[in-house]
């Protein structure tokens, strides 16, 4: 999909008006949160399992160039052709050449974020007019509707059954039904015809295994296995951080991904693919390609602090723990990575200026990092993005924040460092908050108006500072009073 995070505000305004969607998504968040926690808790030692997945991802990042070379060497030995793409344009053009070279007319796809990242479907359709069908039920529905995926494993989770049924009536001639089983049956029949006729299958990669030169794919519907085994040619696209040293490491990542995301011990299908069809074999593609995409990741890799963003294993658990995502939905993020996954990845891949609202519209609640199986520290990354934006950053396309904002903060900081100025400022602000009823102000001035458009603001009668001073004075006068009483009494005694 075309990235458009600049449209965050208008898109968000549309989305937050959908109160039913917000209610529904909060239920989804609660259910997935429960399933995931329960599924992780079933592990022999959940904490150790998480530490292990973090260690695996760190090991990958610490040895990334070597692991990628090892993967390439072994994959080539397995008969896989490995192609490197510096950016989205190069990846698209490589795949276009493969489509032409192999005389491909029909492509089926395994749902992959990476092909959304490079906007491959549109590119191939526009450039070559080739037919492409997504193989995942949800992804096929959003493809037909021409909308972006709403969730990494539930692309159509925000659509109701009527919308889904109508989409299928309009696009594949299904007879209208709201029966989920019948809908799935229709789609299955439709897709099987496509798989049978497809010349090329295009998939992503969940994990690439360096020591064996294999790629691993996880799914629940079986469509990816179709796309990787029925067509003549299989093209797998991976971003370069997806490699693991060996199968044990790779499968642990896969397990954590599955437990965290859908709350399954492991997905229904796991395919370990180590090359095209051998001579004499009946199944599998004649040719297999792996396209390794950089698209800005080597630059992230070079910064040892920012590098942790590449630990992400795309489970999507952060999304169902993110109140912003559950409220504003996926669309405002304006790219293939919704929720905190996008908050972490999009600014570094697209630049900090264009993605400003993606990392700014965050309460820093830490919900995401508390459930992240890769141990990404979202809050400190977001702090860093904001600091890079405040100061300006050439590498990640951040122009310095406007002088107006900087100066406002400078003025504020001056007051914070000067108690007298600070007290005066506090009193002035309290004055400008306007009239209060029952201890609440309900019509705030200037930029604070957006607060009182939606809620009141409690304003205590006095500042704490004043209360404290009065308490000290009271204690002082009480002491004096007591002392005076004592004097008086003493005086009487003396009489």
């Amino acid at each position, binding site marked *: 999909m075309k990235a458009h995070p600049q449209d965050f505000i208008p898109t968000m305004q549309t989305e937050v008006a959908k*109160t039913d969607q917000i209610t529904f998504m909060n239920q989804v968040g609660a259910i997935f949160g429960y399933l995931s926690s329960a599924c992780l808790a079933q592990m022999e030692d959940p904490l150790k399992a998480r530490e292990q997945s973090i260690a695996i991802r760190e090991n990958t990042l610490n040895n990334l160039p070597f692991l990628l070379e090892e993967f390439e060497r072994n994959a080539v030995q397995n008969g896989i052709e490995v192609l490197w793409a510096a950016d989205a344009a190069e990846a698209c053009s490589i795949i276009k050449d493969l489509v032409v070279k192999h005389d491909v007319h029909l492509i089926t796809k395994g749902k992959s974020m990476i092909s959304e990242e490079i906007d491959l479907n549109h590119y191939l359709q526009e450039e070559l007019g080739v037919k492409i069908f997504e193989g995942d039920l949800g992804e096929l529905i959003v493809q037909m509707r021409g909308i972006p995926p709403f969730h990494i494993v539930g692309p159509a989770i925000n659509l109701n059954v009527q919308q889904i049924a109508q989409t299928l009536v309009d696009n594949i001639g299904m007879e209208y039904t709201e029966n989920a089983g019948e809908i799935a049956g229709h789609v299955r029949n439709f897709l099987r015809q496509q798989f049978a006729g497809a010349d090329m299958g295009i998939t992503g990669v969940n994990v690439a295994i360096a020591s064996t030169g294999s790629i691993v794919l996880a799914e629940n519907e079986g469509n990816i296995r179709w796309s990787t085994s029925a067509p003549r040619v299989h093209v797998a696209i991976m971003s370069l951080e997806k490699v693991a040293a060996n199968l044990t490491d790779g499968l642990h990542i896969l397990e954590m991904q599955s437990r965290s995301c859908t709350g399954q011990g492991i997905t229904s299908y796991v395919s370990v693919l180590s090359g095209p069809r051998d001579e004499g074999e009946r199944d599998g593609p004649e040719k297999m390609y792996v396209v390794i995409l950089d698209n800005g990741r080597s630059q992230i890799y070079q910064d040892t602090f920012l590098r942790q963003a590449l630990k992400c294993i795309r489970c999507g658990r952060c999304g169902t723990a993110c109140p912003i995502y559950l409220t504003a939905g996926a669309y405002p993020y304006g790219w293939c990575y919704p929720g905190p996954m996008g908050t972490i990845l999009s600014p570094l891949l697209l630049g900090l200026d264009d993605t400003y609202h993606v990392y700014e519209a965050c309460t820093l609640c830490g919900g995401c990092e508390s459930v992240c199986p890769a141990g990404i520290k979202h809050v400190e990354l977001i702090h860093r993005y904001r600091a890079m934006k*405040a100061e300006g950053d050439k590498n990640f396309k951040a122009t310095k924040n406007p002088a107006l904002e900087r100066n406002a903060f400078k003025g504020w900081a001056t007051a*914070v460092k000067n108690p007298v100025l600070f007290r005066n400022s506090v009193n002035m602000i309290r004055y400008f908050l306007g009239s209060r009823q*029952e201890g*609440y102000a309900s019509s705030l001035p200037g930029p604070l108006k957006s607060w009182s458009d939606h809620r009141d603001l409690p304003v205590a009668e006095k500042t704490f500072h004043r209360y*404290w001073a009065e308490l000290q004075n009271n204690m002082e006068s009480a002491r004096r009073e007591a002392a005076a009483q004592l004097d008086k009494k003493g005086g009487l005694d003396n009489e």
Partner: protein
Amino acid sequence: MKISLFIPCAVDALLGDVGMDTVYLLSSLGFEVVYHEQQTCCGQPAISAGYLDLARDIAKRFIEIFENDEVIVSPSGSCVNTIKNDYAKILQDEPDWQQRALTLGERVFEVSQYLVDQAGIEDVNASFGGRIAYHKSCHLLRALGIDEQPQKLLAKVKGAEVVALNGAEQCCGFGGQFAIKYPLISEAMVRQKTGNFLQTGAQRLIVSDPGCLLNISGYLHRHHPQLKAQHIVSFLAENMNGGVS
């Protein structure tokens, strides 16, 4: 035992009553409360907005004011987190200051954390006839790992029935500047939070951070004036000693 009070700027400016309730609660429990009048703000807004150079100066000033105190207590998990965790990060290029931040951080506590973990107090001799629900403030829960402490204090309030709150650990939508910059998302979030509270049938929603209190009580006052959100120190102070306030 002498306790130095760290009063966050939001409490000073808008929630002075919460500050006084903290003084009352701690004094009633036998602590001597001191308050450094030159304290202002911990600098969290600058850290959140990315102005780290400004935040560093503010952090150093804060450290100088408080570092001679034995124990520092605050009615805000969010601001305590700034001192305890963020200061050392923003001062990492100045090892001396970073060390001072870390040394100070060890002695700074959120009030329920101090009472339960340090002072061993769970029962403050409060009683309340009614149902209450507890909202788990984000920075308290996830940044400081404080979960049981406030709940232990509430559980010991005689007569109070603590009822479960759906999505108790989900952010209320405050987020400092966030509430001003993204009012529509913020409102939808606090609507969700108060909606869950309404479902509990409880009279009061107890929170532990001034930010959550501003947001939730402000929303309740506008839309559900019969219901009330209250800071845990205010709830305890109000209902201590059989309800003397």
